[in-house]
């Protein structure tokens, strides 16, 4: 009974073959069953996430949060879902109906698709493909598509602006994200998730913490969460791409966004925090999902913490941060890790990890030095006196020269 | 490290410094001089290591440090270059390394490093001084920094490279290369202030005069190479080669090849070491900055000439039987002794402080040549060694004096020549360091007994002359020594003793430490450099220090020259001439009043005028060589040869070709070729005009057309061509 999932699968297979079904069909049925169970489970967790998110933000903002429906307000999300389901479904004039309806589905579906490659336990994984990391990137880019479709199909300029911003942001932040993903791939010498998890002794967060940080930051940008939420930016473009959506279609976007955050947390846990690894997991594989979700929620908490602590950045700052800081840093880290890996071939794991960690910390230190210098010059530049409110005819340089 | 590898490395830092300064650090004065000093210091350290290793090795004469590389192929064999360190090289390396380092260091102060930029200074002229204001607002004139400071150090570095190459080379060809590099540097540095007409003229004069000697020397090298098949020392100084050279008779003059080669090579020395009759360039070379005078025209480059004859002494002395000098040696003895006396007499009547030293250099080099001529090999090398130190010291001292007086000139604004000794006087109190070091140098030059280096080397030459019973040489050299002591004391008395004869001299100040320190270093060597060569049987003090020079340097030769037995006659001569000359010089010039004439002028009358004008040699050469050359060039070469014959022929050819071209153009080019070209062009235009409707500018139509044609071709190929 140590591996209930596979035991149940074997039991079902025995029953079905007893009914006289062919082997191929049984595999298909079991796979479909697995997909349904996994998706349902994840979506149920998603409903729970709404409550967690709202409770947490309330705590961060010194409020109580939902506390009326059920104990601690835990039934509140169910009530919300019911409200969303019975709301009027509005289609804007001039909207592209098919695409307008397709967009929220794609947005949620891509998130669900990601779970296919997240290993839940040593023996339980949707699909242990050998390009899982690339798969994550690919599915992420389809997610972009959903947002563009939503923004374009709404026939609304704010929605289109939001879509534009999203494209710029997602394509930009994909670059450091892929490079950061390459670091654990490089260390584990595989793009398969199970191999990466199995290779993590010690966890990669202790070997290459900088890569984890870069992945976290770029993932938050991919999620479009604060401080990178310029694609929604309520105060600027109202709500961005989902401005025209109501009812359950909006609900799908909302659920997708929350679930995406949890999924990213699960991926980061898998790649850097050892995934399902934990004490006694080899004897009792069912402990794997427990460990994974504990870690995923920790990372999720971190993402929420960041979300409710930072202000939104401007779009030029966001792109500048990516192209001028994050991408070069990630590239440099990748090169350093690759060279060190080659240099340290054959060294005991302990020393290997320590040297890698040291190199990471060294890079962080150097980066901080450069940042401090940059900040100083920036302060000086901003602190310089600039002429205020001059007529367009006045030559600004002349004005400055007079002082 | 192998000593020979280190030897290879000796010339490298200076040439690196040269290129670095020229190409990179030209703009930064401090970087330039740091580079030059560092480079020469590295070479100096290397040289000292070599010297130490050489002295430790014990029998360097038989086993010199040497190493050889193939340079370029000559038929079946390679011309080889290499390095060669034997005792003579060691001795030369020792003084060369020290003097070069010290002089480059001195140049920092001499070229006014750290002083402000001049008011009107421009490249090519000596600095004229700058005006500065102190806190109270008073304006002062102070010396200004040399505008071409970096270039000066680059040239000095190149010069050091040349000298090192010359000294360490193992064959006469690379020696000649170094020799010519120094010739170039000499030209560049004499003409350093190229905007001064006199400096320009002096540079050209020095270059062309030494070139005369070099051409003859090259002839000698060529002849030697054709006979011996090599220029490496170990080959040409071997017994077989020397015997072969002695037995071969030269095609001209009916002398042996050895004599002819020796004379040719000696003529190179005559040019380089400014011996009569090619001495005229050296006094004019004083137009360059004083460190140049010290380095090139006193301590090292002119020494290279003497080094050459000392080096080829085996050839010069080839065929010497029982102390009977060869023809070459006789010629050298004659010219050396004559130059020694001749230059000394001129020096007596010179007023310029540097010119006196220039003529004394010529005179002292004559001493060395004469010593070689009488076969006093070791004595010549010894005097070369000591002379380098004290002559460098004297020149640097004179530079310091000039500097001090220039300072006074800038201060008072007088318009006087700061190099004229009659404008000085009483500098002893103003410039104590300069005075004492100059005095030490002067005493060494005049051979002041026992204490000075010059005494021991000069005494040895006289002793050699006495021992070889070469009376004319002995008498001439002794008289020259007397004159030397006289004009040295004249110089010291006029410059330092008595009262200041001008206001500027009264305002002279001691030079900076960068200039004083080299003086002190050289003064120490001017005293101690003579000690290793004290004859062992010298009364009282002989034998305390072993006669190291004789054994060590003498080892270079195949057989050790026998030690000269001590005799009191040359000693007495030395003592009398030096002390007598010194006393006379002081007595004649003591307490000379302001504006007084030279006392000698009254005494000697027209002879004085003759001496002051250097026996009118410059004018003589002008009449004999320069003007005929000008005349020949303008009349014969230019008017007759160039304008009439060559130009005429060219014009004739040109006219023929011109008319031929006209025919070709009118009857072939225009109708045939142009017509064809126009026809082609017009046709292309016409075809293009008729086909341009296809050019719609729409890319898709182009593609459709391309595909249609491609398909057409393909189907044509498939259905028609592939059928059997």
């Amino acid at each position, binding site marked *: 009974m140590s591996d209930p999932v596979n035991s149940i699968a074997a039991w079902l297979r025995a029953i079905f073959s007893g009914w006289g079904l062919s082997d*191929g069909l049984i595999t298909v049925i079991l796979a479909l069953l697995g997909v349904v169970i996994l998706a349902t489970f994840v979506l149920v967790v998603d409903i729970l996430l709404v409550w967690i998110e709202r409770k947490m933000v309330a705590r961060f903002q010194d409020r109580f949060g939902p506390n009326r429906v059920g104990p601690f307000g835990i039934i509140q999300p169910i009530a919300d879902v019911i409200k969303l389901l019975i709301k009027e479904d509005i289609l804007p004039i001039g909207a*592209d109906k098919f*695409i307008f309806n397709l967009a929220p589905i794609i947005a949620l579906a891509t998130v669900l698709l990601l779970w296919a490659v997240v290993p839940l336990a040593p023996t339980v994984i949707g699909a242990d*493909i*050998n*390009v899982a990391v*690339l*798969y994550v*990137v*690919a*599915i*992420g*880019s*389809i997610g*972009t*598509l959903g947002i*563009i*479709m939503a923004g*374009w199909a709404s026939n609304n300029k704010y929605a*289109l602006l939001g*879509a*534009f911003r999203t*494209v710029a942001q997602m*394509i930009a932040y*994909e670059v450091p994200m892929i490079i950061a993903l390459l670091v654990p791939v490089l260390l584990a010498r595989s*793009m398969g998730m199970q191999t990466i998890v199995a290779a993590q002794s010690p966890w990669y967060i202790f070997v290459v913490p900088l890569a984890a940080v870069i992945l976290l930051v770029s993932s938050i940008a991919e999620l479009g969460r604060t401080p990178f939420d310029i694609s929604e930016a309520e105060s600027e473009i109202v709500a961005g791409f989902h401005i025209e959506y109501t009812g359950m279609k909006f609900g799908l976007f909302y659920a997708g966004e929350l679930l995406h955050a949890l999924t990213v947390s699960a991926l980061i846990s898998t790649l850097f925090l050892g995934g399902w690894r934990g004490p006694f997991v080899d004897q009792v594989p069912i402990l794997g999902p427990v460990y994974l979700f504990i870690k995923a929620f920790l990372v999720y908490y971190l993402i929420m913490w960041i979300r409710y602590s930072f202000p939104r950045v401007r779009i030029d700052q966001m792109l500048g941060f990516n192209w001028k800081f994050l991408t070069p840093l990630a590239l440099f880290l990748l090169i350093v890790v690759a060279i060190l890996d080659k240099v340290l071939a054959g060294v005991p794991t302990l020393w290997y990890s320590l040297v890698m960690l040291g190199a990471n910390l060294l890079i962080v230190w150097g980066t901080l030095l450069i940042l401090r210098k940059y900040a100083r010059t920036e302060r000086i530049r901003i602190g310089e006196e600039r002429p205020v409110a001059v007529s367009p005819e006045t030559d600004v340089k002349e004005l400055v020269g007079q002082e | 490290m192998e000593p020979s590898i280190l030897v290879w490395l000796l010339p490298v830092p200076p040439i690196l410094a040269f290129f670095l300064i020229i190409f990179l650090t030209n703009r930064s004065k401090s970087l330039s001089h740091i580079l030059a000093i560092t480079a020469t210091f590295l070479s100096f350290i290397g040289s000292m290591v070599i010297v130490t290793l050489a002295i430790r090795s014990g029998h360097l004469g038989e086993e010199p440090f040497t190493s050889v590389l193939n340079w370029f192929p000559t038929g079946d064999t390679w011309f080889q270059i290499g390095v060669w360190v034997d005792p003579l090289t060691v001795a030369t390396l020792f003084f060369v390394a020290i003097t070069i380092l010290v002089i480059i260091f001195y140049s920092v102060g001499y070229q006014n490093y750290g002083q402000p930029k001049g008011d009107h200074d421009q490249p090519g002229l000596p600095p004229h001084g700058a005006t500065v204001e102190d806190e109270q607002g008073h304006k002062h004139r102070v010396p200004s920094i040399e505008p071409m400071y970096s270039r000066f150090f680059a040239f000095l570095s190149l010069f050091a490279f040349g000298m090192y190459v010359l000294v360490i080379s193992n064959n006469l060809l690379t020696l000649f290369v170094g020799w010519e590099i120094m010739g170039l540097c000499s030209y560049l540095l004499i003409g350093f202030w190229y905007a001064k007409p006199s400096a320009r003229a002096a540079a050209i004069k020095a270059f062309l005069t030494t070139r005369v000697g070099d051409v003859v020397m090259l002839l000698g090298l060529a002849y030697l190479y054709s006979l011996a098949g090599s220029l490496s020392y170990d080959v040409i100084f071997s017994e077989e080669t020397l015997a072969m050279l002695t037995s071969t008779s030269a095609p001209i003059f009916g002398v042996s090849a050895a004599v002819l080669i020796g004379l040719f090579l000696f003529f190179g020395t005559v040019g380089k070491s400014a011996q009569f009759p090619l001495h005229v360039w050296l006094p004019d070379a004083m137009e360059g900055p004083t460190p140049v005078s010290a380095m090139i025209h006193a301590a090292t480059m002119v020494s290279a000439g003497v080094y050459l004859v000392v080096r080829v002494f085996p050839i010069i002395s080839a065929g010497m039987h029982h102390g009977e000098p060869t023809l070459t040696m006789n010629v050298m003895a004659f010219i050396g002794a004559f130059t020694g006396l001749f230059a000394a007499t001129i020096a007596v009547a010179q007023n310029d402080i540097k010119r006196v030293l220039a003529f004394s250099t010529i005179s002292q080099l004559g001493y060395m040549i004469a010593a070689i001529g009488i076969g006093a090999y070791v004595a010549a090398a010894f005097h070369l060694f000591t002379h380098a130190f004290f002559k460098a010291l004297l020149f640097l001292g004179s530079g310091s004096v000039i500097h001090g007086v220039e300072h006074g000139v800038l201060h008072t604004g007088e318009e006087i020549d700061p190099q004229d000794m009659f404008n000085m006087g009483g500098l002893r109190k103003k410039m104590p360091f300069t005075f004492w070091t100059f005095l030490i140098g002067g005493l060494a030059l005049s051979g002041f007994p026992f204490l000075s280096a010059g005494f021991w080397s000069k005494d040895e030459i006289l002793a050699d002359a006495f021992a070889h019973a070469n009376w004319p040489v002995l008498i001439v050299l002794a008289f020259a020594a007397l004159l030397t002591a006289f004009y040295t004391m004249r110089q010291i008395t006029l410059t330092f003793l008595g009262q200041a004869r001008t206001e500027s001299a009264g305002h002279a100040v001691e030079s900076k430490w960068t200039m004083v320190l080299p003086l002190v270093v050289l003064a120490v060597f001017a005293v101690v450099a003579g000690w290793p060569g004290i004859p062992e049987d010298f009364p009282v003090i002989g034998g305390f220090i072993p006669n190291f020079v004789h054994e060590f340097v003498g080892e270079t030769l195949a057989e050790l020259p026998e030690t000269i037995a001590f005799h009191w006659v040359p000693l007495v001569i030395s003592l009398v001439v030096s002390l007598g000359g010194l006393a006379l010089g002081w007595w004649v010039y003591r307490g000379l009043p302001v504006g007084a004439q030279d006392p000698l002028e009254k005494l000697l009358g027209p002879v004085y005028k003759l001496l002051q004008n250097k026996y009118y040699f410059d004018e003589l050469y002008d009449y004999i060589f320069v003007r005929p050359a000008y005349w020949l060039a303008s009349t014969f070469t230019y008017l007759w040869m160039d304008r009439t014959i060559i130009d005429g022929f060219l014009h004739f050819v040109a006219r023929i070709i011109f008319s031929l071209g006209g025919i070709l153009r009118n009857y072939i080019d225009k109708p045939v070729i142009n017509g064809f070209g126009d026809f082609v062009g017009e046709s292309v235009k016409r075809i293009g005009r008729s086909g341009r409707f296809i050019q719609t500018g*729409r890319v*898709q*139509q182009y593609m*459709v057309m391309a*595909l*249609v044609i491609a*398909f057409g071709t*393909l189907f044509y190929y498939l259905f028609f061509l592939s059928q059997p």
Partner: protein
Amino acid sequence: MTVMHVVFLITAVVSLGGAVMVVTARNLIHAALWLILTLFGVAVMYGLLSATFFTVVQVVIYIGAIAILMIFAIMLTRRVRQEPGSNVNKGWWLAGLIALLLFTSLVWMLSSWPGFQTTLQELPQDFDSIQVLGTALVSPEGYVIPFEIASVLLLAALIGAVVVAWERKS
């Protein structure tokens, strides 16, 4: 008819239909979305050919980058959503003819080739095409020079695109 056949036929029909829609759709955004569908179909084809790397890269590059860039460009270059008039040029019938001709001649030529009906062999058990491909792309005996040249080409394209699209402010 195995499962593979079914999957292949469905994919082929969907992607070819998508391709036809790409070249005929009046609305460019729709054309781009159809293009994405076709590209997905091609990705499935790669999967059927057991080139997993290509499957994923197809999605990353074509859908995630190229198609999205195209949609972006369409949005940037269209003031009015629907272009008036025909969406094909005057010579469209000639183009269709050429395409049809090319297809028939291609099929005809291919069918006369003896290797046309080659059947699928099983890949060796331990054959990891990603590993082999990766090694081949960076090994000097393999394709390291084309690979590097491709990267230089990408860099040049990057810079070129920036330079070309740069809006110079006078």
